[in-house]
């Protein structure tokens, strides 16, 4: 079983956290912090396994991680998982992200955490590995994206236009403009 999947950057900022066992929010933050401290002080050329921290797991649990550029992908698993298998799985996860975001980088994870979660949900479900075949995963994700697009249709057009405008970085004033309240008379009109 996988107990938790954490992604954080070189400074320990969380980019994705998925706990398959309940921890209250402050505990989650402590776990992320502890895991970061354990993982970050290790060189890149040492092995990718280490005994789990005191907060999460215990002796049966291991942290298995990979470090890509600015991000750490950490899986906390128990002894029923194969160590090398989980390393493969992290690789599949990252490659899938790479396909979905086209040359994925930390920023994609920062701005699209929800999408990353949806992708992860196709790999792992409730702490158990659901699918390891990347093509299968990609089809499922595309299918669901199509479903979303169909729903959006025309009704989402204005929203998309606005977000495009926002991305152009309009001065804050415009955003702060409040629309005047509608005259009372109009509100009282009955149809």
């Amino acid at each position: 079983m996988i107990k938790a999947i954490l992604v954080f950057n070189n400074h320990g900022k969380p980019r994705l956290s998925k706990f398959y066992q309940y921890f209250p929010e402050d505990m989650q933050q402590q776990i992320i912090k502890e895991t970061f401290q354990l993982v970050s002080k290790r060189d890149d050329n040492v092995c990718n396994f280490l005994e789990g921290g005191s907060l999460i797991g215990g002796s049966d649990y291991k942290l298995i991680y990979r470090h890509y550029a600015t991000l750490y992908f950490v899986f906390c698993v128990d002894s029923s998982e194969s160590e090398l298998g989980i390393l493969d799985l992290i690789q599949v996860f990252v490659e899938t992200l790479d396909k979905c975001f086209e040359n994925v980088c930390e920023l994609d994870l920062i701005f699209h955490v929800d999408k990353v979660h949806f992708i992860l949900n196709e790999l792992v479900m409730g702490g158990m590995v659901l699918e390891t075949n990347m093509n299968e995963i990609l089809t499922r994700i595309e299918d669901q994206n199509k479903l979303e697009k169909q729903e959006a249709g025309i009704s989402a057009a204005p929203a998309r236009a606005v977000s495009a405008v926002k991305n152009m970085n309009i001065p804050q004033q415009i955003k702060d403009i409040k629309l005047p309240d509608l005259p009372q008379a109009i509100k009282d009109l009955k149809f």
Partner: protein
Amino acid sequence: MALKKVKGNFERMFDKNLTDLVRGIRNNKENEAKYISQCMEDIKQELRQDNLSVKSNAIAKLTYLQMLGYDISWAGFNIIEVMSSNKFTLKRIGYLAASQSFHCDSELLMLTTNMIRKELNSQNQYEAGLALTSLSCYISTDLARDLSNDILTLLSSTKPYIRKKAVLMMYKVFLKYPEALRPAFPRLKEKLEDPDPGVQSAAVNVVCELARKNPKNYLSLAPVFFKLMTTSTNNWMLIKIIKLFGALTPLEPRLGKKLIEPLTNLIHSTSAMSLLYECINTVIAVLISISSGMPNHAASIQLCVQKLRILIEDSDQNLKYLGLLAMSKILKTHPKSVQAHKDLILQCLEDKDESIRLRALDLLYGMVSKKNLMEIVKKLMVHMDKAEGTVYRDELLSKIILICSQNNYQFITNFEWYITVLVELAQMEFGSKQGHVIGAQLMDVCIRVQAIRAFAVTEMAQLLDIYTSTNQFTIMQEVLYAAAWLTGEFATELEQPEQTLRCMLKYKCLPQHIESVFIHNIIKLFAHVMEKYELAGRFDDILELCDAILAKMDDSIKSAELEVQERASTALIIINIVKEEILAKKNSKLMDTGEDPQPDELVASEILSLFSGELNPVAPKAQKKVPVPEGLDLDAWINEPIETTSDSDSEPENTENLFVKSDKYDYGSKSEKYQHEPTEDEIKKNREARKFEQQNNPHYLKGSLSSELNSSNGNENIENIPVAELNLNIPPLKILGQKRSDKYLKLQQKEKKPKKKSKKKKKHHKSESSSDDDNADTVPAVEVKQHMELPEGATLSDSESEQHKLDDPHRALDIDLDLPSIGDMLARKDGDEFETDKKEKKKLKKKDENVKDKKSDKHKSERRKKGKVENLLKLDLINDDEEVKIEQKTKKVKKDKKKSKDKDKEGKTKTKKSSSGYEEALGISTPTKENYPS
């Protein structure tokens, strides 16, 4: 109305969405908390609106904030609202938020039951999949009970995507609602042979998780798994199956024998390291479980060790780590095969990677022999100096002590060296717990090895001297505890007891338990000094010492700690009495000088009698093994509790722990757990085992064997055991803080060359000239006491594992699945209705079930066993001639479903591709789009 709606929509466009939130947080790094609290206000505003898409936007933002550590449970109801949306896009946001923030104790979950049920039965497979994924994160007992049938139905869905998720979901259901396991199990078993590889793999995954905790109930599935193992090419699934076999083999050795061959084939053929590694692991498990009686058993071990050596020699640190990990498993049963690779393991001790060094340390345990112990320990001591971080240091320390003390100090030829090592260790810095370890070890050695006491006590006296005279606190205080106790207990061995006594009197600010030991042992030491002086008639010296002690005790009696106070006042009174007696004696002696004092009139001997008697080591579990006497009910009140008002209820609990550190053991209530009374046979067996061990133990003097066995625990005979005298002609050592232990190593090396005289050296030489392997029959250099005190009839090996399992959720899943219940039968009928299209497959399986049905109709455990055996025997059949037949049958089935088979193939090749090349890395490119947060 329409206008209002338009306005609402228009305003909404300027609402912050998730991207804005993230950007905002990044732009407000200085006052992030303030910015977020502002956003929280906005979000609350948004949640109050009717528009679902506004709400979903707010929930999406909340999910992000949850990741940053903000509690969002207050929005639970809104999350459920969003989950109930008709739109997939919104639903997805809601279910994601739920999976991140809900947990199985949320009361809100009651509201979700029907909604999730509706979703599970949705026509759209992605909606059902969404609900399953989310539910898996927070399923509660109620939800599991209410939805288990719906999920069970999904197991026979036509869409593999749903089947796959439903299979995994069933495991979560079992955990929360164990009653579901029995009726669902036949279906789950069918899924092991599902045409879709993904579903198959999921089913294997679930059964593995189930079997890991209660393997004996799944032995009957062995033939199915065996077939999968020999036919499948999906590495991920193979790994799981092989791991499962590793758990099953200890229960059924015949299965292990069957496995060896295909596993060795896999080891030879596979290119995937992950699979290779798991194969080796399981082969090891098999070899451990059968241990002997295999014809080419040695060959398999050899193969494993060879392959592991390749892994350890690999430049990839991961393989090195795993190789060492697997080696340690072999070490337990086949130490000799591992010892051949000593060079490699010692080399790993130098590795720059801490994880690898730790693994290599684990292996050292089996690497030591009398010959190389000193050398290895010296290496570890060098590491100790270099090591940064207390974790690794602590590990090193405990490993040094472990390898030295293993098997009653089997490998130590020179205890002086060991004491010196311990003293050196005592002067290094460790975590707070380590002092205790060293102290305990020092005491253990001295109590068990009589011959070393004189040397050890001198060392301890010096430690005390350093501690009191130099004012430095580099010596761990817990070691002082041992030092004080040893010098007091074995005061007769001291050369200059008075000097040591004066050292001890100079103690200052110690933890209470150490201070009390100091006080107590000052008295012991004083008694010895006094005896000497009294015989010599030096009464003035005694009086002077008395005054010194009294002065110190006057300080200690003011201590805040009760224990110290009590010890100090006892000491005060004793010393005062002594003083009076001595004064009287002195006066009487002054009066008539003619007579010599008779020995029996000595004041000192009276005090000495307070401390007489030999101490024996006590077995670690002895306290727990003391049986509760018959008729004693620890739960019964001694005095009926006085009726108290509610506000004073907490008082008794506090007083309980006032004087003694509370020990979590409640002997009364758990008495049934350790009441195990060994029968006559067991006692006999134990005795024989002990006899056998003693005969094979080089440290056990065989002459005393018979007399040992006459008494039940042998402790009374300790005086009769002849102790090998050590003829030590090494001058006393005075300088501390140097690497004195090296001296012994040099000494040992020197001895190897010239054939020298000296009684002790000769002995040494004998053991060294013979090869490593005959450690077993060397002449015992020093006698080590092995008996530990235990209550009558108790043995050290009584297992206590039951206790630990109590809180494991898997305990409830320990259900014998071969016994059908009514529910089981019903479920099977259900299954027939649903799977009319899979009848052909059923035929194949029927045989399997027939055997079991017949057997299990009668609820007798003997019969069940037989059923299992027959299943296992089938395994043989499959492997021999029926294998072909079954394969042909499966081919027929597959022909009917050409499409699925083709898919099947595609899937298999793909998975193979993705999981075989574990090394290749496709990194995330370095981001260039924007500047980074720092």
